């Protein structure tokens, strides 16, 4: 008996160390990536200073690198994508969980998950051939936004669906018992319960939309210095610039592209931290009521 327990304790310890090691490895890799890319981006900050973030003239020939228009382009396309994807995703998630009979629900869930598995370059090529040429949208912020929306719908939908499904049946039945219609029940029981999780799902979609590279590079238009609110104008985003210009870039130009990567990295971390904070706050509020 004693032997057995000793053995078990040993296994427990080994497991704890292995798990902790794996967790530490993630942090280590993240840290190393951050250190490497930051150090390699220093030459451009040395040259440009903070004007890297505040100007939008990007001219490798003049050794001028201002990223403002690309930062704007990243935000603008991601916002267009969210504006399109959020209502669709929430609608789909609510339909699957509250309205559809199981016969329809199952294939629908399967299809949305399938959509999430389509490689982004396929969406990009479809965007070039169908959206920009066949429908005459050209290459623009809007075209990129639509493609990004299609790409993030599956993620937001499937996360939202899982969050909504955690609504206690008692809450829903209570609302219905009080004479609420299905619509009122969703408004009174389902949405308040899942608000935090839904925001988290949307934020994760936002993170993916901002980081998407190939599809954006293909349809965004690659125009420089576009600080515009017009969705039909061609523009550029940070990952698209990196993908397009990396191959032929020389020393300082490469450093500027790496600086774009650092900027994107930091913004993504901020978005994710904000998402976590919002989710946690709403959960605490949920427990309070």
């Amino acid at each position, binding site marked *: 008996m004693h032997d057995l327990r000793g053995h078990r304790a040993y296994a427990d310890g080994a497991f704890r160390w292995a798990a902790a090691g794996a967790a530490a490895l993630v942090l280590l890799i993240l840290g190393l990536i951050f250190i490497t890319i930051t150090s390699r981006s220093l030459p451009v900050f040395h040259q440009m200073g903070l004007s890297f973030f505040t100007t939008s003239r990007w001219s*490798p*020939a003049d050794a001028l690198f201002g990223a403002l228009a690309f930062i704007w382009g990243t935000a603008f396309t991601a916002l267009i994508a969210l504006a399109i994807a959020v209502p669709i995703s929430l609608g789909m998630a609510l339909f699957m969980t509250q309205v559809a009979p199981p016969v329809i629900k199952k294939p629908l869930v399967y299809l949305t998950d399938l959509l999430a598995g389509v490689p982004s370059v396929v969406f990009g090529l479809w965007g070039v051939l169908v959206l920009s040429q066949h429908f005459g949208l050209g290459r623009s912020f809007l075209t990129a936004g639509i493609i990004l929306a299609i790409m993030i719908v599956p993620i937001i939908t499937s996360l939202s669906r899982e969050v909504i499904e955690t609504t206690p049946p008692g809450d829903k039945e209570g609302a219905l018992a009080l004479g609420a219609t299905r619509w009122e029940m969703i408004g009174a029981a389902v949405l308040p319960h899942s608000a935090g999780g839904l925001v988290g799902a949307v934020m994760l979609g936002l993170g993916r939309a901002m980081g998407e590279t190939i599809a954006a590079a293909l349809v965004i238009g690659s125009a420089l210095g576009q600080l515009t609110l017009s969705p039909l104008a061609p523009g550029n985003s940070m990952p698209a610039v990196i993908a397009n*210009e990396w*191959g032929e870039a020389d020393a300082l130009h490469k450093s500027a592209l790496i600086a774009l990567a650092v900027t994107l990295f930091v913004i993504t971390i901020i978005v994710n931290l904000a998402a976590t904070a919002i989710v946690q706050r709403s959960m605490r509020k949920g427990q309070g009521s």
Partner: protein
Amino acid sequence: MTKTTIWASALAVLAFASTPAAFAAGATLNGSGSTLSKPYQETAIEEFKKANKGVTLNYGGGGSGKGRQDLADMVVDFAGSDSPYKEADLAKIKGGDVLYFPILLGPITVSYNVDGVSKLQLSAETIAKIFQRDIKKWNDKAIAADNPGAKLPDLDIVVAHRADGSGTTQNFTEYLNGAAKGVWKLKSGSTVEWPADTQAGQGNGGVAQIVKSTKGAIGYVDLSDAKASGLKYAAVKNQAGKFVEPTTSAASAAGDGIEVKSNLLFSALNAKGDKAYPITCQTWVIVYAKQTDKAKGEALKAYLKFLVKDGQKLLGEIDYAPLPASLQDKAVKQLEKIQVP
């Protein structure tokens, strides 16, 4: 099971021993770089392998800049590049001195899509004004002046250029920088500051696609992609004042008028000669002078010799121009500088 494997490997060894190839079996050469010369590399590799079965050759493309970087980092055995290393990058080359072997000349067309205009002539100044958006209509005075008697429509010009950094952009803008001095303002580089009201496509194929599908479009596309997409292209005014169409023979004529340095570097842009097409670019294969592996070094020398001499006859079929004979001989002679252990 084990016995059969042994027999199989024994047979394989016998098979290798009986091939006529002069090289040790298993010499693998990897290259990357210039996409302009990729069709030639692929055709040449296929032909070269027929006679040299023991050698495995791969050419990955990826762009001239990637090729130069890969060679500098010693991840490939040779790089294809449309331009030489820059001074600033020389210090980063890990494997010592490099040698440049020119392998082909290629015309860059100025392709356009205007109904009813089947012949178009353009001078460097006009091309510069079109691509930097000083001229926005096809019936502009400057275009009319290059095309006496032609009927030009009142149509908006749509400029198409590369979205990705590219050796083609580098050569095209370098040409305008030199030939349209004082007019061209966007400088030269693998990417330049194109005005925002222009369109961008990925690769030569992407630009060709925009030109093909957009009325009034104009873009710079290499000859083989322009032909593959069935585009119309302009005759461009050369140094001698003649309008010359982009053809492989006009690119070869450009090769006759160039000044080649002792390290075989040159620029075929804006070359002298009545028949020379002025926007002609070139590709080099770059290798290390000091090879560290005997089998690889020998195979590399043989492949280079094929590229600069025997393989040159393959170029015409894929719409590139061979090097002038004198340059081929210089390149063959430079092979002696490759040191194999």
